[in-house]
């Protein structure tokens, strides 16, 4: 047991996991520092939910290490879960409970539960305390789940695709909750999403996953600065995408083509010159474009 607080809220080292013949996670390593917002980005089926399930102890690693605040979620579930607030993608709140019963029940397990804060959140979210959870709409269900994850101010907030299938109003509430959490001293947020605009707005660090592997990890600013969008102009119209080494992906038609490159700017520009193109503009790429470029590169 650590006497001093570990600098990382979550440490995953070499995590691998298979389901039958499918390799869901392939030597995944990442670190989530305290007091920061970590965004996990990936396509559907990339392994984001599997990774989060490992952090909660719902899945056992086949190889590798998972530590949340220095504790192993499988050996010491109580230590991890009492510090973690979790909003699942499946919204598996018990359908037979009422909202007020849900609050009372959950409050019993967390000594740091703040009744006044929970009540304020409930009113802000507009949840009827006497309503049964099975009668709640999808957005209200998500809000109820978020409520019980926030009310005891956990040190780590784990959100698994929090905005999936929700209207913009609810999505704003969720983003507000994330920001409020991290603005409080030392609390950490880890969320997975494929809505890249949201990740770009609130994340400090990101990791990108494809087919169970982490292809990219670092602070959001570093990732964005290292990727460039080059607009290339060719003298002759190209029929098929020109082969330019050093770029992740290239799209366009005719004489103007857009290439996304990762860090190797000079190499890409030289290679473009070799195939007869010149760089007419250079901008920083958005996270959306970076993601699509990597997706394209990974499927080749």
């Amino acid at each position, binding site marked *: 047991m650590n006497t001093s607080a570990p600098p990382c809220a979550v440490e995953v080292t070499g995590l691998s996991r298979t389901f039958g013949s499918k390799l869901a996670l392939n030597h995944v390593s990442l670190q989530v520092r305290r007091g920061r917002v970590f965004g996990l980005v990936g396509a559907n089926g990339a392994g984001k939910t599997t990774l989060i399930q490992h952090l909660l102890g719902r899945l*056992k690693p086949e190889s590798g290490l998972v530590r949340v605040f220095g504790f192993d979620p499988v050996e010491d579930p109580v230590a991890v879960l009492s510090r973690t607030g979790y909003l699942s993608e499946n919204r598996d709140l018990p359908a037979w409970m009422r909202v007020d019963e849900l609050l009372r029940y959950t409050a019993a397990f967390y000594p740091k539960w703040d009744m006044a804060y929970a009540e304020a959140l409930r009113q802000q979210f507009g949840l009827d305390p006497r309503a049964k959870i099975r009668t709640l709409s999808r957005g209200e269900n998500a809000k109820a789940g978020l409520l019980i994850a926030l009310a005891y101010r956990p040190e780590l907030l784990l959100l698994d695709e929090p905005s999936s299938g929700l209207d913009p109003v609810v999505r704003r509430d969720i983003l507000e909750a994330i920001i409020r959490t991290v603005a409080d001293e030392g609390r950490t947020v880890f969320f997975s999403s494929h809505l890249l605009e949201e990740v770009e707005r609130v994340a400090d660090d990101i990791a990108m996953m494809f087919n169970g592997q982490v292809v990219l990890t670092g602070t959001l600013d570093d990732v964005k600065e290292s990727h460039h969008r080059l607009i290339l102009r060719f003298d002759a119209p190209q029929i098929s995408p020109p082969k330019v080494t050093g770029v992740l992906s290239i799209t366009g038609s005719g004489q103007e083509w857009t290439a996304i490159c990762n860090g190797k700017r000079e190499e890409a520009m030289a290679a473009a010159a070799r195939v007869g193109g010149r760089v007419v503009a250079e901008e920083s790429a958005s996270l959306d474009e970076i993601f699509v470029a990597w997706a394209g590169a990974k499927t080749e």
Partner: protein
Amino acid sequence: MGIAGLVLAFTVVYPKLCALAGFDPNNPDPLEEVAKSSALQSAAEPSLLRIGQVLSMLFLACGPAVTMFLTLLCVVWMFTYTELDQRTKDPMRFPGRIFTLPVSTSFLFWWLFLGGLAAMMVFYASWVYLIPQPRIKIFGMHQNCFGWMALMVLAQAIAWTLAAWPGTRMLILMATVFYFLGCIDSFNFFECPIVLPLGAALAFAGLQKMRHGQWQGLTWKWPLAVLAACTEWQGPKRFAPPAQAQVWFEWRRFAGTFCFITVAMALVPGVIRLLARIVFSLEPLSGDMMDGFTVFLVFLPLFIHFCVGASPARSDQSFLMVRPLTNGEMVMPMLKTAAISTAISWVAVLMALAVLNLLGDFHKVAQGVSPLPAVRVAIVLGLIFLTWRVAVVNLCFMLPGNRWIATMPVLLIIALGAGIVVFYQLEQYGGYWHPLSRILPGLLLFLVAVKFLLAFLSFRVSLQRRLFAPNDVVNYLTIWVVLVAALLGTLALIHPARESVFPLSLGVILLVPLARIGFCPIALACYRHS
């Protein structure tokens, strides 16, 4: 397919079994014969073998009829064409995707209606004509195909017209089925010629309305709200210790509903019949009815608690798995709520027995069970313990959430039945009883030792992995010791022979669950950290 297989199996195996048992199915009164053969042995002390013998005779006598009923009920259910809906957990939802196919409602209806009638006739005929069934009076009332067909059509009508009110529908359906099965009076409502066409018309209307989403949105306001309020225990304003919150959760999730069903099923028929008797001045119930009713009341909590304990819904708890609770803290409230539910159910059953006393000659029934009041009390106490046991003992199989392990309880029951048949076979080779009675104590002692060893191992592993708090372990061991002592005291009430005291006490020790409870947190860990 399964039903056809069962019919075939019975056709082939049953006559052979009867021949082996020296049991003549064509005897006009098979139950009388069973009673006679058991009366011959009642002079001797009740022992396992005799009980086994009687049970196997009962199985041979009633087995075919019971299995026939079960299979025909299965056909009825199949042709309502409903299935369990994963999303809303509605046990009888008509698959909406059928309505998106380019078929008219009439086509659907006639297909299900005629198909159901045809299947019913085929299976009924095969049961009745292929297998020589013993003619038992109680079951005789149902040897009528038309009644079964009417039941099928009524079931379809209820399932389809009340699709918008699943709770009400289930209640009415259960009531209809029980009325059908329990109706022993000479007047069989189901054989009335108008029931079939009326049911068919209702079913068609229901299917039509279901297709177009009509007949929805009306809700029962106050009666169901009152009922719901009765079953829901709200709990205190603020749950102080987490254990209390978890007991509340377990109660509301499972035990409360099943307890309510048990209490309702125990009390309502008796009270209704009593009121009917007072209002309409009906004569008291016949001896057979009293017997049947007593058996129903006494085995009701046992059956329902077995269903709770072996329910597959036990393992659908991902919300619970991310609460900061140890596995032991999740298992103990399951045991507590099972005990509370047992207590309440049996209070209701005893009250219902008191009501039964007012309906007919209960004294004769009681004498039929046993002439000694002490033995009757012992039987009741034994059954109360058994009710708690069946609710709790199968938890370690249901908790891992694994489909194959979850079939263990059913397999164990089948094994029990097979063991009884084997016992009966051995009876043919007389003279085996004495060597068996000599090794029996040794065998039981060995089993008890294995039980203690497994319990020790399981508790040790649970404690090492901090799945079970030491406090909880000590609490459970205390409860175990108290239960064993109470049961041994109950045993003393029936004054068994000196040489069977030791095996019987060992049997008692084997019955009280210890190792299986010890394995529960480990089983839960398999589900929690898969």
